C-alpha cells in the first residue's frame, strides 16, 4: 500500500489513519451517558482529502476531536501510522473553527510557537516561520497581531502555524465557516495548492455541501442522534473544481448529499465503508 503513485511522485509514507470501532460517550447534565459517536470504522490513506458533512450534533466534531486526541474513546482504537492516539500530538495538526491563534503573539510568533518543538536556532526558526507565512501569502503581515488581521488572514496564519509543526494528518474543523463566500473560495484554492504540494492526509469538516464537493476525494455523510456515518461518496469530478463549472458527477453527488441531509433515513443501502474503506489516489482516478 506504500507503493509509489503512478504519476512518478513518491507516495507519502505517512499519514495513515485507521479508525477501528471507535466510539465516544458523553455524560449529559442528568448524569446519563449517551453516545456522541457510535462505533465507527474508517480509514484515511496517506495523502487523501476526506470531508465529513452532517447537521450540527451529528458527531462530526466529536470524531475529529477523537482523532486529535482531545476526547477519549469509550471503545475501539484510532491509529495514526500504527501509533495509538492517546492524546494530542504534533503528528496530528488541527485548524480550529475559531482560529485559536494566540493573540499575545504576532503572526510570525504564532508560527514560531509551532516550530519551537524542533529546537532549532532562533534565526533558523525565524526564517522557517517566515517561509511558512510566505506560503500562505502573509509575509507582509508577519509583525501584525491576530487582532489586527481579518478573518481570512487569521485563518491563513492558523494554517501556516499548524503546518509548521509538520503534522502527518491535518484535521480542519469548519475552518472557513466564518468567512464570506469570496474569501472562502480564495482559501479553498490556497488549501488545495498546499495539499497538492505537501500531500498531507486531510480530514475536513464542513456543513457546506459545495465546499465538501470542491475539496475532497471522498465525502462521508453523518447523521445525528446517535452520531454515525450514513453514506460515503467518492467525488470523481476532475480537479481543479469550482462551483460555477460543475459536471454531472458533481451534481449527482450534491443531490445525493442534500437528500441525505434532509432525510437521513433515506440512505439507500447501508454503504458504511469497510475497515479498508479505500480511497484511490487522486492521480490514478484522473485518467
Amino acid at each position: 500500500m506504500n507503493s509509489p503513485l503512478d504519476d512518478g511522485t513518491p507516495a507519502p509514507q505517512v499519514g495513515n489513519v485507521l479508525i477501528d470501532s471507535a466510539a465516544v460517550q458523553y455524560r449529559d447534565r442528568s448524569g446519563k451517558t449517551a453516545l456522541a459517536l457510535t462505533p465507527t470504522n474508517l480509514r484515511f490513506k496517506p495523502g487523501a482529502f476526506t470531508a465529513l458533512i452532517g447537521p450540527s450534533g451529528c458527531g462530526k466534531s466529536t470524531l475529529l476531536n477523537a482523532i486529535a486526541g482531545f476526547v477519549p474513546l469509550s471503545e475501539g482504537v484510532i491509529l495514526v501510522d500504527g501509533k495509538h492516539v492517546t492524546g494530542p500530538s504534533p503528528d496530528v495538526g488541527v485548524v480550529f473553527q475559531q482560529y485559536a491563534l494566540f493573540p499575545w503573539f504576532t503572526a510570525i510568533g504564532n508560527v514560531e510557537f509551532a516550530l519551537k518543538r524542533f529546537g532549532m536556532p532562533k534565526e533558523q526558526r525565524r526564517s522557517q516561520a517566515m517561509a511558512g507565512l510566505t506560503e500562505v501569502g502573509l509575509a507582509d503581515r508577519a509583525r501584525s497581531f491576530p487582532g489586527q488581521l481579518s478573518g481570512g488572514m487569521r485563518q491563513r496564519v492558523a494554517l501556516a502555524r499548524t503546518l509548521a509543526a509538520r503534522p502527518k494528518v491535518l484535521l480542519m474543523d469548519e475552518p472557513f465557516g466564518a468567512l464570506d463566500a469570496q474569501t472562502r473560495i480564495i482559501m479553498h484554492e490556497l488549501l488545495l495548492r498546499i495539499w497538492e504540494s505537501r500531500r498531507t492526509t486531510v480530514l475536513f469538516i464542513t456543513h457546506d455541501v459545495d465546499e465538501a464537493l470542491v475539496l475532497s476525494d471522498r465525502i462521508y455523510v453523518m447523521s445525528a442522534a446517535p452520531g454515525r456515518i450514513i453514506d460515503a461518496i467518492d467525488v470523481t469530478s476532475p480537479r481543479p473544481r469550482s462551483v460555477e463549472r460543475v459536471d454531472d458527477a458533481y451534481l449527482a453527488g450534491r443531490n445525493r448529499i442534500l437528500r441525505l441531509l434532509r432525510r437521513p433515513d433515506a440512505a439507500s443501502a447501508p454503504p458504511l465503508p469497510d475497515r479498508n474503506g479505500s480511497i484511490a489516489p487522486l492521480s490514478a482516478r484522473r485518467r
Partner: protein
Amino acid sequence: MMTETRKALADFLRVPASLGGVLAVWALTTSSGAVNTEIFPTPAAVWAAAVELYRDGLLTTDALVSVRRAAIGFVVGSSLGVLVGLFTARIRSVGYTLHPFLNLLRPIPAIALVPLAIVWFGIGELSKYVVISYTVFLSVWLNTDHGTSGVAQTYIRASRSLGAGTAREFFEVVVPAAAPHIVAGLRMGCALAFLSLVAAELTGASAGIGYRIQEARNFIRTDRMFVGLIELGILGALLDFCFLQISRRLVHWEQA
C-alpha cells in the same frame, strides 16, 4: 482628524473642569456662613494647612513613608497572590484544599486584622506590611485564580497539538491568556494597597498619611485631615493612571 483633536482636547479639559466645579461648590458652601468652618474648612484654609505641613517637612515625609509601605505591601501581596492563584487554578488538589479557606478570608476587612497584627508583629513596620499585603493578596489571588482557571480550552488544545510541553503550555499559553485578569487584579490590588494604608497605620505609627489624619483628630484639625484625604486621593489616582498605562502595553491585545 478634526474630531480626534477635539476629543483629545475634551478629554484634557475634563479633569480640570470636574475638579474646578467641585472646588467652586466647596468654596461657595464654606464661605456662605452656613457651615462651621472649624468643622468644614474652606479650600483656602486647607491650602494653608498643606503649606504649613510642607514647610515642616511632614507632607513629603508622610507621603514617602506611606508610599513605601503601600509599595512593599503591594509587591509582597501581589507576588503571593499571583503565585497562589496560579497554583489554585492549575493544580486541582491545591485549589480544592485552599479555595474554602481563601473564601473564608475574603470578607474579612483589613481593619479587623489590625489588633491581631499588632499582637503578632508588634507596632513596627512589619505589621503594616502584613495588613497591606493581606488585602492586596486576596484581590490578586482571586483575579489570578479566576483568569487562570478560565483559559479557553481551544488554546490548550492548540498548544498541545502543536507539540508544546507542560512548561511551554504554562508560560507561553496559560499565563498570557490569564494576563488580562491578572493585570486587572494587580490594578485593584494597587488601589487596595492605598485603601488599607490608613488601617495599617492604625497599628501605631509615627509618620504616614494615615497617621497624620489620625493625629489631626486629636487636635480637631479638620484642615489637616482634608490635606491627608486629598493627598491620598491624588497619590492613588496618579498610581492608577501609571498602572493603566503600563497594563495597556502589557496586555495590548485585549484592546485590539
